[in-house]
């Protein structure tokens, strides 16, 4: 790892030295400290993240962009999903299997994004590792087959994906997006086609995509047995204004080969009061998730933790409030409320602008539901302090 770090750093220095006149260099450093209260014990996890972005325009119509990330962890790095699963579920599983559910926060250094964008008169072509953002939902995006958001911090940047995309603007605000994300074969590669348009003050899109969906059987006696299914998605989204409220909706139906089809739906609305108090409410339905918490089994929990399935509970809402206490201090919070099992997670947040390029963020996570429910208290509570300095 150290060697890789050194090589990466050297490469970066060389690149910047060689073409310092042409390459724009920026990024941020982000130290983070987390305290976790779990099963009557306190644990600490710290991380330091350095992100360095490069951007260059070798020609008026060509853009090169990339970013390297270095991440190092300290404190309690070894965890097991087992500890977050209700005892009622784990009690029926052989204890020797616990080792299969461990995970570690390993130090990492990697090329997160690296792409070339060609601007042609009638379309843009972008190839390489790049961020893909789809959908209008805040906490959940049914049409996004590439990313799953962290519910405690949904606006955090997503990782880059290897892809080639063409953005083809049409007339009157309409545009077509065609994207191909190659894997080992054509069949298991990601493909996406989207038509985006505008009607009055509404933006809308229709989307069709295909990808390979990994579904793991964590109950298999000998190992975690992964199966791969072709998943075809047909969906759409819209965003606009209704009776003075900001409104959006996003939905998708998924045709899954050799497994159950499912559908997801997001409906949301928001409003800013004259006092600048901002309120948002978003509803999410996942037809594959269960409505009775007593039926959540080991696979449900682990597929949710591994982001194979976006939700363990069928119907839930995300409620968000933000208020600028001063011109530099913003307080707020969100609540994730499972309508199916009645459990709630509170996520208070504080954002302070210490300097124009330095932000402090405090994010709590308090699960108050009964053990066994989606946001059960057995999953512990946490407090995260993050500072980020941009350069």
């Amino acid at each position, binding site marked *: 790892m150290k060697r890789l770090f050194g090589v990466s750093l050297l490469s970066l220095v060389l690149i910047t030295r060689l073409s310092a006149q042409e390459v724009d260099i*920026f990024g*941020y450093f982000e130290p983070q400290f987390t305290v976790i209260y779990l099963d009557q014990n306190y644990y600490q996890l710290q991380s330091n993240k350095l992100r360095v972005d490069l951007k260059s325009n070798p020609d008026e119509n060509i*853009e090169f962009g990339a970013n390297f990330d270095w991440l190092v962890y300290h404190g309690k790095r070894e965890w097991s999903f087992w500890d977050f699963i209700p005892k009622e579920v784990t009690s029926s599983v052989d204890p020797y299997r616990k080792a299969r559910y461990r995970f570690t926060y390993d130090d990492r250094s990697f090329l997160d994004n690296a792409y070339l964008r060609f*601007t042609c008169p009638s379309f*843009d072509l972008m190839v390489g590792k*790049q*961020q*893909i*953002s789809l959908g*209008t939902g805040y906490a959940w995006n049914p049409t996004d087959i590439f990313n799953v958001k962290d519910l405690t911090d949904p*606006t955090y*940047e*997503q990782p880059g994906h290897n892809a080639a995309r063409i*953005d083809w*603007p049409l007339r009157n*605000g309409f*545009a077509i997006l065609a994207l191909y994300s190659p894997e080992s074969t054509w069949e298991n590669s990601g493909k996406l086609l989207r038509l985006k348009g505008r009607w009055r*003050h509404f*933006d809308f899109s229709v989307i069709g995509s295909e990808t390979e969906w990994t579904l793991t059987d964590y109950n298999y006696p000998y190992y975690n047995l992964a199966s791969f299914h072709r998943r075809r998605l047909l969906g759409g989204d819209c*965003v*606009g*204004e209704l009776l*003075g*409220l*900001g*409104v959006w909706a996003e939905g998708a139906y998924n045709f899954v080969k050799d497994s159950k089809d499912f559908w997801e739906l997001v409906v949301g609305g*928001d*409003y*800013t*009061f*004259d006092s*600048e108090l*901002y309120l948002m409410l978003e509803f999410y339905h996942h037809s594959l998730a269960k409505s009775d918490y007593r039926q959540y089994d080991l696979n449900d929990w682990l597929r949710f933790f591994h982001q194979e399935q976006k939700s363990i509970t069928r119907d839930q809402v995300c409620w968000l409030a933000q208020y*600028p206490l*001063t*011109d*530099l201090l913003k307080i707020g919070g969100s609540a994730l409320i499972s309508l199916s099992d009645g459990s709630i997670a509170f996520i208070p947040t504080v954002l302070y*602008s210490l300097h*124009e*390029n330095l*932000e402090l963020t405090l994010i709590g996570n308090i699960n108050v539901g009964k053990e066994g429910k989606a946001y059960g208290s057995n999953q512990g509570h946490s407090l995260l302090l993050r500072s980020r300095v*941009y*350069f």
Partner: protein
Amino acid sequence: MRSTRYTLFLLLVGCLCASNGTAQSVTISADTIIQKVTQVMNPAQSKGKMQMTIVTTSKKTRTFVYLAYSKNHGEKTLMKYLQPSRVKGQSILMLNNADDIWIYFPRTRRVRKLATHAKKQKMEGSDFSYEDMGAGDAFIEEFKSRLLGEGKKQDRLCYKLELTRMAESTSGYSKLVMWVDKENFVPLVIDYYHDDDSTLLEKELVLSDIKVIDKIPTPMQMVMYNRLDRTQTSMEFLEVSYKVNLEDDLFTERGMKK
């Protein structure tokens, strides 16, 4: 929503001012003055580089630099942040006289559409809301104007106008009082009165350092004083040009990301 129009962007980006007119007769009507102001504040196209400095309640400063483009007499505007690093690459697109607003976040490559209510939010914590940054003909469309008399501001002879919000208007201000330079029809001071109380002064905008650029008189410096929060935000042109030919493609999602 359309309250957007009267403030800044015109004043800012696009600004300003046209007409190399001569002093007008005192018999000029309020409607004529406000039409000339609107005309003066909406050049056909503009491109500028601006610096915005916020002085917070704790007397800390925050400085932003951005590029600003405007077309169709302020009907389309685009802002692209250059500094500080925290917001570098972020852009704001306003179409249909700021009735439709989108924000682009480069770190997530996500474009977010803002509803009308979100325009009340302060832009990057400044004393300008997104609404204030809009452009267009709001002085005419949203307010009924009345000539109160004449007076002096910045040692210039000015018309003093009162603009009262029309019943059907959705403007966030109940009333404006404006001092307009009699010679070039540039507004030198605009007082903004509270949404719910037409006697409560909420903000005051002062425009100064007027230079003629491409034959258009342009206030190079603008300061918005928030009389309630006791904060202020200044904006100044670092560069500005009105002799530009901006493509329509610039004012699209594609243009925001470029």
